[in-house]
């Protein structure tokens, strides 16, 4: 009678161990897929009427931080962000703002209050929404995955590099050896 509960406990442990290893296998394969999907460039896009072709990372950061209010052609800059939680937004916060969500919110609240920030970012839910917004607003600037770019918007090179280049900096996943 005493041997039977022990046997059951051992069997249960074995089953749980076996189940856990199977789940790990599934997660591992999902991670591989995610890494393949997320190893993609993020394009900085503007309205087709915008004459800007290239921006330095410094200028881009300045624009995204809201420190500039107008383009050289006099058009007002409108910053377009995607909703929190999106991979593209995380990458932009990481590579351009170098902030987390809390710091990002605090920066704009504080900056608008003090007048140091001139632009309040518009938040859109999807890459399609971003594209349409930028298509309608001549001074808009935003970002989408390189695969989401279409002829209605224009891609701006960063430091002379386009999203197809290998050493292009803005990617969904941080590049090895960079921050």
């Amino acid at each position: 009678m005493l041997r039977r509960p022990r046997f059951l406990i051992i069997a249960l442990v074995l089953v749980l161990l076996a189940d856990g290893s199977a789940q790990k296998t599934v997660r591992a394969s999902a991670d591989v897929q995610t890494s393949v999907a997320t190893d993609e460039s993020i394009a900085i896009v503007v309205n087709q009427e915008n004459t800007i072709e290239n921006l330095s990372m410094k200028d881009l950061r300045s624009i995204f931080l809201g420190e500039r209010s107008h383009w050289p052609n006099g058009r007002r800059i409108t910053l377009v962000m995607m909703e929190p939680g999106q991979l593209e937004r995380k990458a932009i916060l990481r590579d351009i703002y170098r902030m987390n969500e809390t710091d990002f919110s605090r920066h704009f609240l504080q900056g608008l209050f003090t007048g140091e920030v001139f632009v309040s970012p518009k938040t859109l839910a999807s890459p399609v929404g971003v594209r349409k917004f930028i298509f309608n607003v001549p001074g808009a600037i935003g970002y989408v995955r390189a695969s989401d770019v279409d002829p209605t918007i224009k891609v701006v090179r960063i430091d002379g590099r386009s999203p197809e280049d290998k050493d292009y900096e803005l990617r969904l996943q941080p590049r090895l050896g960079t921050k």
Partner: protein
Amino acid sequence: MSTSVTRTTRPGPLGPHSLIDRFLYGISRYSSTLLLLMVFTVETGVVIFVIRDLRAADSEVQTMYVGSVIGLRGIGGLQYDAQETRRATLYALTTNDSNLQVEYADQSRDADRRVTNGINEYLGRAHTASAIEVGKRLQSDWVAYLKVRDEVLASILEGSIKEAVDYDLKGGVPSFDRVRQDLEEIKRQYDEQASQQLADVDESSRRSAGRLVGVLCFTLLFASVSIWAIQRARMLSALKLAKLQMDFVASVSHELRTPLAVISASAQNIADGVVEEKDQLTRYGNVIRNHTRQLTELVNQILLFASTREGRTHYVVRPMSIEQLFESVLHNTREVVREAGFTVDVQVEPDLPPILGDISALSQCVQNLVGNAVKYGGTHGRIAMRALLQKSEIPHGDEVRITVEDHGIGIDSSDLPHIFDPFYRSPSVAAAQIHGTGLGLPLAKSIAEAMGGKITVVTKLGVGSAFTLHLPTLKKGTLQTETVSPDLLTRR
């Protein structure tokens, strides 16, 4: 002058409308089927005319529908889409949600695309100068409004609501008003066009109705005239027949009375003992015999003609040679020819093939021709009777042509079409007191046709006439005797 003569009716002065009556005689010759055919042709033409008229009216109505009703519907759609463009733009003002604003901007752009396409379609359909002018103005005003609309949308999406409202009030409202006025102008033009086309269709309908009434009146009139013409043609035909019959009765009475009078007078003289000597008796006997034969021939002729007309004659058809036929003819006409002081020159081509026919009937036919030659042969005193083999009009067929030629008075061209009409006698012949019944040639023709042949005549007034009987030669393998009715023989 060679003429194939067929049976014809005689035109005559039977009323005041001699030209019309001549025309009606012509119709009655070929029966009223010709007239009915003309009526049918005219009716068909009328029906085609009416159908074409109705189709033209239908086409006009369809053009009006396409040009105006569909056009008006298209303008209604343009007005709605233009309003939708503006409405969606203004809806974007009512929210701060950028996602919704983008959605409204999208709706506005969809609607403006439909308007742009609609304007292009309108310009493609426009044909009049005024329509093209207002279409181009609408296109220009719409582009101007879209520029303002784009600025308004951009301002809304940027979050500059005040700026957007300012843009709309200063630029959007006036430019959209111009677009609205342009659309109203186009609509007004369509209304005018529709009214004009409606008036055109009304006019066309009235015209069609008038034509229809006219055509029906014409048809009614034509049908009435046709019926009158048919009736009159029949009446004229009946009148002519009655006149010919009356002439015939008068002629036959005269032809009967003359020999009867001679016979009666001769018999009376013999009975009264006036004639006693044998020579005198012989002469009186010859007179009575000749006039009796003349009477018999006349009666036979009439009976034969009556029987051929009724189709009661039965011919004994058998192969015969031309020599047999000529022998019979010469035998039967010997007395007549001799008494008239004529001689007959006979020429028969050697080795003529046999012919198929009733020797008695054919002999009667040629006798009639010889009798005519004697009667109308003048004072020349010679009659030629020839038989030749010739190619017939039927392919690969031969025929024997028997010609009886005289050198007498000939036939006037006005009489020529009627010489084969029963009871017809030329007025000049009647006036010259030349006796006859008007049955000799019709009977000859009837017999010739019953034997599968025909009679033609070549004549010249004052020179003479040559009547030719055409008879098909006998084909091999048909050498047998049979009795047939004339209808059967003619069909061969």
